[in-house]
């Protein structure tokens, strides 16, 4: 039940885009049409789904103060949590690299449609952000971390698909010249964020 609550919360209330502004760069750059946006959203969800449990294990068994005690008594006091950032970014970069190779091998069509944005997932703030939030909130087991990853990913997917759909319609409307392109996208994202805030306080 708690996990279900966390899942719903991370999709709607703690939405990566509307509540924390994570992954905005690719969010703004790739949201020009629904199909590509959806593909990128799926890829991000997939990376989050794997990255979170993996980095949970790293944090639990390598980084936390005293986490190295399984190596022997003399390591029980060791605290290498300052290495966290470097470890996490390395894990994410490696995962993205593997994902890229797998997609290229088995589904070349998807690989071609994603193009340059696939390797760029490594520097998508949403993924490192979710990992750091996971570390900050001290989830009790790897399963909770996975649920959080899935929820954040689906929230991101939902946000980018909605924005892409709105932007497709926007091509036909009259926007003041200085606001065209980026400006109006910012305003729309802001309004969508306000709309998403109506989910605040929902509890399961």
């Amino acid at each position: 039940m708690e996990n279900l609550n966390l899942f719903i919360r991370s999709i709607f209330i703690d939405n990566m885009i509307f509540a924390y502004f994570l992954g905005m760069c690719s969010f703004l750059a790739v949201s020009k049409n629904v199909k590509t946006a959806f593909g990128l959203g799926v890829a991000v969800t997939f990376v989050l789904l794997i990255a979170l449990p993996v980095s949970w294990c790293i944090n639990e068994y390598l980084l936390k103060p005293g986490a190295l005690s399984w190596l022997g008594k003399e390591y029980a006091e060791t605290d290498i949590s300052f290495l966290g950032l470097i470890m996490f970014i390395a894990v994410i970069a490696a995962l993205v690299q593997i994902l890229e190779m797998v997609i290229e091998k088995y589904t070349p069509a998807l690989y071609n449609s994603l193009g340059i944005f696939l390797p760029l997932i490594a520097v998508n703030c949403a993924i490192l952000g979710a990992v750091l939030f996971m570390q900050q909130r001290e989830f009790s087991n790897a399963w909770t971390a996975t649920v959080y990853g899935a929820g954040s990913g689906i929230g991101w997917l939902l946000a980018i698909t909605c924005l892409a759909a709105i932007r497709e319609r926007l091509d036909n409307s009259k926007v003041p010249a200085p606001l065209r392109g980026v400006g109006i996208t910012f305003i729309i994202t802001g309004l969508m964020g306000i709309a998403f805030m109506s989910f605040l306080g929902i509890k399961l």
Partner: protein
Amino acid sequence: MNWKKSFIPLVNPLSKDNPVIVQILGICSALAVTAKMEPAVVMTISVTAVLAFANVIISLMRKTIPSSIRIIVQLVVVAALVVIVDQVLKAYNYEVSKALSVFIGLIITNCIIMGRLEAFALNNRPWPAFLDGIGNGLGYGIILIIVSFFRELLGSGTIFGCQIFPDSFYQAGYMNNGLMILPPMALIVVACIIWVHRSVNKDLQEK
């Protein structure tokens, strides 16, 4: 005028080639830390420091890095610098470090840094790369400070935590606009800045 030319990388990013509102880089952190002015200023200083040093280091190594692994090399350099900044902040300004929470760590994936390393540091000598780093850091900072100024002034009625509106205003019925504190308003304030900036610089308008 040779010296004037050498300062182009420093001056350009302040307005004409601003990283946030023209290149559309580094939006994530620019929006998330701007509810109050103090974290915004600390964030500006951290990003500028990391960007300048990362630019210099990558620029010094630009001839030895094989292009196939350059992204990983860049990430490691930036991550190491960010770890240093994070530790310094925790030691000397713990309150702000708590308020910024994960956003210091997220400097690693800040697109401004990767963008400038790719676009500038890889093809330029260390000194121009250093100026470019400082310039882009400050260009990012200007937007952060403008946004946080409006959000803190209208949202909490304070600047750097000092009360601006006298109590008599509040007795007369003035109220702080709580909406400004909420995250989505940051986007709308940035959109207004873009609007003003592009009305002045007509060549930046799309279509």
